Each structure stands twice: as structure tokens, then as C-alpha cells.
């Protein structure tokens, strides 16, 4: 009796979010006040954060017969996911309001998406993992389609759904092959049961799993959906898609490839290396040609995922923690950049073309400074945090003997620097538009955005705490 009670403890945050997501669904239906749903959503996320924080103890605990795992890496990622969701919802409030999307469904869907991510982060079984992944994906498809009258958004949702379903199919197919080989769906048993005597079959299953994961991460050559979805979705939804889900995707890569399929490291290392170089090349080169900021950031995401893969493929504690640091800081940076797009959009005007930001410095020097800090951080220029993110990944790469990959990565970073610099150029060097940009949103959003921008600088000046946390979390979570 006590044992089963104890067994539920690791999943307490998930249970909490699920219950309150259902309540949020009902709140609007009965009260007709979407603002209540907004407040309740934010408190739910904060509450989940508190529960996770109290649950975090650095010990690896399994629940539900080993289908669910609670460890420090998962806890840290979940905390960042809550924070990203809170910030994303706060940034979006005014935007949704102006476009008639400020309704209970949005908040319920966000909570379900967060729940999906939490399940993904804590999955130690193929089925749990797939359950979380689909919960997240279905919520995101619906969120993209939330703006019913917009043809672009509907198209994006359709594309997202079809391609997402295909990727899920890949993943399931790969899982089924692995199941056929090993007779188990659980990561802990899989790692022992992986049969290295049939390398061909193993690689065959692995390819499908990796392809599915690459799709979810948005890494080339499975990246086609990213620009269209980022561009087509309402900016507030892009803001959400572009941040927290990356953390969950990182988590499932860790769970599947490192926790489950580590014996096949030689195989997936090479796949990741190819995908990383492709992502860096395609992402950075294609981003140069974009005139739409959302699309440009979408391609830049692809490039950043390439960097993330570089950290993962080193197969070392240093590399995994570097990748974790990278994905966390990237999520925060991306949140700020899309947050700025949302903040500068107002009723009837989407500030999403590069031209819309012309001469922002003349009228709103502080907003321009925040945006510039975010861009320099993405470009990896010190003293902003993006520099350290790239630095630790490169360090892990060189440490693992992948010198040529490190050189390739910096060459593509140089190409990437060009389009980030172009944004700064638009902000500072160009003459302002005749039509003035008026920020929407209240002073709380402005404060949050400021914090987001200054955070880039502070994390870059003092990277030690977060770096040490990532290193520690990886160390206690991997055996």
C-alpha cells in the first residue's frame, strides 16, 4: 500500500497539471471569463514548478513499473519548461486578445502541451514516450490552427499534422523493430538487451528512431516543416513552439539514444554528425535569404539544433551537459526574440518582416538594445550567453577528438553571424519607418522582455551556476 503511494510521487507534477488543465477547460465554459483561465494557467505552472522543486532530490526513481522516471535532468528541464510556458503565455496575452484568440481553449491546450512535454521528459518506456509526444504534438497542431479564419495558419496546421504524423509513424516503426529485436519496450531493459550480433537489424531500427527524433527536433534533412509552421502559425503560438518543446525534444533524444540505445553509440554518432553538419549548413545558408523575421528565426532554429546535436554526439558527460546548457539558453533566447515580435505586433499589424523593425533604435532605444542583445547572443558573440553555449559544445567536441566538426561548426557560425548582424543593422542603421511601431502589451510584459534581454548578458557574464547545474544533473541522471 505504502509502496504504491510512494510510486505516484514522482508523477505528482504531471497529475497536478492534468487535473488543473481539466479545470481550466471548465472555467471558461462556465464563467465566460477568459482572464480567469489565464490566471489559473499561470498559477498552475507556478504550482507545478513548486512541486517539482520539492520533488527534486538528485536520486533516480522509477514509477509505474519502470515506465516513468524521475531524475534531476528531468526536473531541471521541467522547471525550464514551466518557466518558458509562463513567459510565453504572458507575452502572448495582448496579442491573443487583439485577435480574438484569448479563449479558454488556448490555455487548456498550452497546459496539455506542457503535460505532454513533462511526460516526454520523464519517459523511460517507449509507450510513455510516445504518449507524451502525441499529447504535445496534437496540442500544438490545434494551437497552430487556433486562428480559424487565417488561411496561412490553417495551411501550416495541416502541414504540421501530416508531416508530424509521418514522423510519429517513423518513430513507431523504429520502436517496433527494436521491440522485435529485444522483446522489451523499457529503456532500462533495452540497454541490456540490445543485440550487437545483428548490427544490420539494429541499425535499421535505429535509423527510423533517429529520423523520428530529428523531425521533432527540426534537424536537417527532416526540417522542411519548421519554416512553414513558424511562419504560418500566429506569432504567439510560434513563440510557444519555438521554446519549450525544444527542451522536451532534447529530453527524448537523451532518453532514447543515451538511456536506451547507448550500446549502438557508434551508429547514432555518425547519423547525428551528418545531420548536425547538414542542419548547420542548411539552416545558416537559408536564413540569409529570408526577409521575414519569423522565417529567418525558423532557419536559425535549424542551425541551433545542429549545434545541439554536436554536443550530443560527443558521447561524454561534458557533451551532454553542454547540449543541455545549449538547449536551455536557446529556449530562453528564442523566447525573447519571438516575444519581441509579439510585443511589437498590434491589432491589425504583424511586426514580422525585417523591414518592420527598421530604425527601432530611433524611437525605442531600449527595445532595440534588447533585440540586439538577443541577436548577438544567438550569433555567439561574447559577453552574451550564446557564446558560452557554443563554447562548451565546441570544447566537448574537441575533447572527444572531433576537431574537423568543430572547425566546420565555427565556419557555419560565421555565416550565421551575417543574418543576425543584419537584424542589428536594421535596428540601428536604417532610417525609421514613416509608420511608427507602437508596442502592444503592458508594462509587465515590457519588464519581462527587459529581464529576458538582460538575462542574456547576465548568464553570459556568470555562466557558472547554470553550467554547473547542467553538469551535475547529467552526472547524477546518467549511470
Amino acid at each position, binding site marked *: 500500500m505504502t509502496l504504491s503511494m510512494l510510486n505516484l510521487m514522482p508523477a505528482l507534477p504531471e497529475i497536478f497539471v492534468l487535473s488543473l488543465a481539466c479545470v481550466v477547460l471548465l472555467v471558461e465554459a462556465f464563467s465566460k471569463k477568459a482572464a480567469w483561465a489565464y490566471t489559473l494557467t499561470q498559477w498552475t505552472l507556478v504550482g507545478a514548478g513548486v512541486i517539482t522543486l520539492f520533488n527534486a532530490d538528485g536520486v533516480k526513481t522509477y514509477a509505474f513499473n519502470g515506465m516513468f522516471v524521475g531524475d534531476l535532468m528531468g526536473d531541471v528541464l521541467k522547471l525550464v519548461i514551466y518557466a518558458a510556458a509562463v513567459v510565453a503565455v504572458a507575452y502572448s496575452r495582448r496579442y491573443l486578445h487583439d485577435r480574438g484568440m484569448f479563449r479558454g481553449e488556448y490555455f487548456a491546450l498550452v497546459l496539455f502541451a506542457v503535460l505532454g512535454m513533462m511526460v516526454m521528459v520523464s519517459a523511460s518506456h517507449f509507450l510513455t514516450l510516445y504518449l507524451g509526444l502525441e499529447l504535445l504534438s496534437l496540442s500544438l497542431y490545434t494551437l497552430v490552427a487556433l486562428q480559424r479564419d487565417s488561411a496561412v495558419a490553417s495551411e501550416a496546421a495541416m502541414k504540421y499534422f501530416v508531416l508530424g504524423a509521418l514522423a510519429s509513424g517513423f518513430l513507431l516503426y523504429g520502436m517496433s523493430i527494436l521491440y522485435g529485436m529485444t522483446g522489451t519496450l523499457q529503456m532500462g531493459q533495452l540497454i541490456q538487451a540490445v543485440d550487437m550480433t545483428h548490427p544490420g537489424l539494429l541499425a535499421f531500427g535505429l535509423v527510423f528512431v533517429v529520423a523520428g527524433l530529428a523531425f521533432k527536433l527540426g534537424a536537417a534533412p527532416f526540417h522542411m516543416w519548421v519554416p512553414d509552421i513558424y511562419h504560418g502559425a500566429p506569432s504567439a503560438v510560434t513563440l510557444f513552439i519555438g521554446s519549450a518543446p525544444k527542451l522536451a525534444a532534447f529530453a527524448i533524444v537523451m532518453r532514447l539514444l543515451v538511456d536506451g540505445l547507448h550500446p549502438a553509440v557508434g551508429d547514432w554518432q555518425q547519423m547525428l554528425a551528418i545531420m548536425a553538419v547538414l542542419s548547420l549548413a542548411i539552416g545558416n545558408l537559408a536564413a540569409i535569404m529570408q526577409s521575414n523575421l519569423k522565417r529567418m528565426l525558423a532557419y536559425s532554429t535549424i542551425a541551433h539544433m545542429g549545434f545541439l546535436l554536436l554536443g550530443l554526439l560527443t558521447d561524454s558527460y561534458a557533451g551532454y551537459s553542454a547540449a543541455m546548457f545549449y538547449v536551455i539558453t536557446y529556449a530562453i533566447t528564442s523566447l525573447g526574440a519571438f516575444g519581441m515580435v509579439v510585443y511589437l505586433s498590434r491589432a491589425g499589424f504583424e511586426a514580422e518582416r525585417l523591414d518592420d523593425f527598421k530604425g527601432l533604435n530611433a524611437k525605442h532605444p531600449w527595445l532595440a538594445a534588447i533585440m540586439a542583445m538577443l541577436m548577438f547572443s544567438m550569433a555567439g*558573440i561574447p559577453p552574451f550567453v550564446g557564446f558560452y553555449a557554443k563554447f562548451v559544445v565546441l570544447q566537448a567536441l574537441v575533447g572527444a577528438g572531433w576537431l574537423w566538426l568543430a572547425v566546420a561548426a565555427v565556419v557555419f557560425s560565421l555565416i550565421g553571424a551575417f543574418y543576425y548582424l543584419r537584424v542589428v543593422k536594421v535596428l540601428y*542603421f536604417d532610417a525609421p519607418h514613416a509608420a511608427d511601431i507602437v508596442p502592444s502589451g503592458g508594462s509587465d510584459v515590457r519588464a519581462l522582455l527587459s529581464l529576458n534581454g538582460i538575462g542574456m548578458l547576465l548568464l553570459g557574464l556568470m555562466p557558472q551556476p547554470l553550467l*554547473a547545474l547542467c553538469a551535475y544533473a547529467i552526472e547524477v541522471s546518467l549511470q
Partner: protein
Amino acid sequence: MIEGIGILSLTIWVPIVAGLFILASGGDRSADGQRAIALVGALAGFLVALPLWTGFDAKTAAMQFEEMAPWVPLININYHLGVDGISMPFILLNSFTTLLVVLAGWQVIQTKVGQYMAAFLIQSGLINGVFAALDGVLFYAFFEAMLIPLYIIIGVWGGPNRVYAAIKFFLYTLLGSLLMMVALIFLFFQSGGSFEILDWQRVPIGMTAQILLFVAFFFAFAVKVPMWPVHTWLPDAHVEAPTGGSVVLAAITLKVGAYGFLRFAMPIAPDAAHELSGLMIALSLIAVVYIGLVALVQSDMKKLIAYSSIAHMGFVTLGFFIFQPLGVEGGLVQMISHGFISAALFLCIGVMYDRLHSRQIADYGGVVNAMPKFAALFMLFAMANAGLPATSGFVGEFMVILGTIKVNFWYAFAAALTLIFGAAYTLWMYKRVVFGPVTNDKVAAMQDIDSREFLVLALLAICVLGMGLYPLPVTEVMHASVNNLLEHVAHSKLP
């Protein structure tokens, strides 16, 4: 060690804090106040740097004024500062130049004054950090961060083609430094987990690795110097940058590149440096001779001085790679002297540009009739640029030529050609601009320099003459460090 915050930290953070303070003080309505804060900040930055000179012990080659604190202990990165005789003079030069730049931009800059002043102050602090850093990553952080203010300076207050020039400047210099980042990480593992530059100088490294490291450093620093053939960003950047930007670019940022050779490339990869010294000397001589000829045909004054900078910096790298005390010291003296002279020349061109809004030599003529005081000072700096004895320009060049002649007569002969070319392009430009009949009414209407401009140029004139007549205090400071460096470089580091 000094209790609390050290002098070097102050030289870095006083200007940066002053710059941030200006940024926080609001828009153009408070421009006068912002100018005042900038002046106070620059002056304070210069004053806190002075104890480096007075308290410097010239007898030792060890690092002085050291400060050490852990920065990212997880990967062993430290906030480690210190200067020796090679780096200390540049901190002073930089702090001094910042003061001049703030004064020079006093009236000329009328839009976004606060951001302009703040960019220069922050830039100044970051450059001091470059010269003071003894930790590889700390150096790198300053080295790249200093691109940001200059990028903004060129792009916002520059000429018509400023966007192209700013982006070209940034990407060119970033290309070099990114490869250096990989080199730094490689050295971290090579040295068993240290980012200390001094540790790297001691660790044995194989020949292939040394060559690769040298090439990585070469890309980082040669672009900054700039050496032929990676110099093409400089004329663009100079022409488009506002006067203050050109001054900082020529007087300081070019020196960062040359300094990098002395701090990184030569002592960390000495065998590769010897192996490739022929190439380096060849590139330097091409810069001296070929770029000198290119300067001769320029019709734009700023471009002319930009090319002259490249030629003069060729002298510096030539001095370094002959591995003679006289050569290296001569190179360092040349760097400081060029800091004064190029700053002065760009300021002179700025003075004329403010009045006539043209940099074309053809638009001028007979300026001496309208601006006698200015013409006299301009004359001094032009002569110094041509390497006239008794000016600082002569000392460095003479030392380098003396050092080179010991190694190879023909190198020295080629290098000495610069005395002819330098005189030719500088004085010919001076003649066309200043002498002759007044060519048009606009020139006749030019006002002579006011007291602020006079002060700036006079300060530089004192420096140029002072160093030309009595260079001993400067060379004395460098002596121990340079000898130590050369002794270190003379020993093979092959395992």
C-alpha cells in the same frame, strides 16, 4: 596585489560603467550632460591607468598588477589580469586616445550623442581588457566583444556606404577569431586543462599542431593588423567610419592584432613561428612596398591614410618576425607612434571634413591661407608619418631597419623604401591639400581650428615630438619583457 579592486580592473570597468551610465541617462535632450559624463568618464579612465606607468617595475619581465579570481571554475576559466612591458603601454595609449575621441566628437556629433559617447567608452574598457587578460577565454571574450561597439559606431554615424563597411568589418574580423576559439580549446586539452596563456606558452607542442595553431592565430591577428592580403576591410571601414571611429580603429584596434602575435602566436608556437617567418616577412614587405604604392594613387584622404596604416603595420610585423630585440622593440615603438600619428592624421582630416564635407584631395587646395594654425600642426603630423627624424615615426622605423639589416640586407633595403614612399604619398597629399592657390570659395571660407580642436591636436603633437626626441622611457619599459619573450621564442617547444 592591491586590496579590493585592482588597477587593471578599474581601467576596464570605469569606462564601461561610465558608458552604461550615459546610456541610462536618456535621449538627445540631455546631450550636454552626456558629453560631460563622457569626458569625466574618459578622464577618470585615463587617470586610473596612470599608476600602471608610475608603479611599473621595468626591471622584471614578470606579469605585474596581477589580479586573479575564478570566473567559470567548472571549466577552469579565470578572471586573470596582468600586464608586462609589452601590454602596459597600450592600455595607456588606449585610455589616452579615448579621451581625445570624446573631445573630438564634442560638437561634430549631434544625433544620438549619448550612444556615440557610450559606445566609445565601452569600447575603451573592452580594449583595455584585451591587453590585460592573461586567461585565454577572457582575452577572447574581450577580443570579440570589442567588435560590437565599433560595428555600431561605423554603422550608425558613418558615411554613405557605412552598412557595407560595418558588416564587412565585423565578418572579416569574426572569421579570424572563430578559428582562434578552436585553437584555444585545443590548447586547453594540450595543456591538461588550463586556459592560462602563460601555461600555454610553456607546454610542449608537436610541429604539426604548432603549425595549425599558428595558422589559426594568424587568421585571427593578421586580419586585425591587417596584413596583406587580408587587409581589404580596413580602407572600407576607415572611409565610412566617423572620425572618432577611424581614430580608434587606426590607433588601437590594429595594435590588438600585432599584440596578439607577441602574446599568442610567437610564444605558444615558436617553432612554427620560425618555420613560417619567411612567409611572414614576405607578407610584411609586400605590405610595406606594394601598399605604399597603392597609397600613392589614392584620391580620398582617409583612404590614403588607411593604406599608409597598413604599410606602417607591415613594418611592425616585419620587426617581430626577424626575432631581434631591436626589431621587436622597434615594432612596439612603431605601434605606439603610429597610434599617435594616425590618430592625429584622421583627426586632421576630420577637422577639414567638418568644414567642407569632402575627403577628396581634389576638393581642397590652399588650405594654409584659411587655416594657418591647422596647417602647421598638420605639417608636423604629415612629416611624422613620413618618418622625419625627431618625430616618433622615425624612431620605430629606424630601429626596425637596424634590426633587419643584421639579418638580411635586402629585407632592410625593401623596408627602407617606405621612407621614400611614405614621404611621397604623405607629403604629396599635404602639398595638394594645403599649399597652392585657394581653389574654391568654400576653402577660403574655412574657419581655423578652435581651441578644442587645437587642444586635441596639440596634445598629440607633444606626444609625437616627445617620443621622437626622447624615446628612452618607452623602450626602457619594454626592454625586459621583449628580451624575455625572444629568449623564450628562441627555445624549441617540440616535445
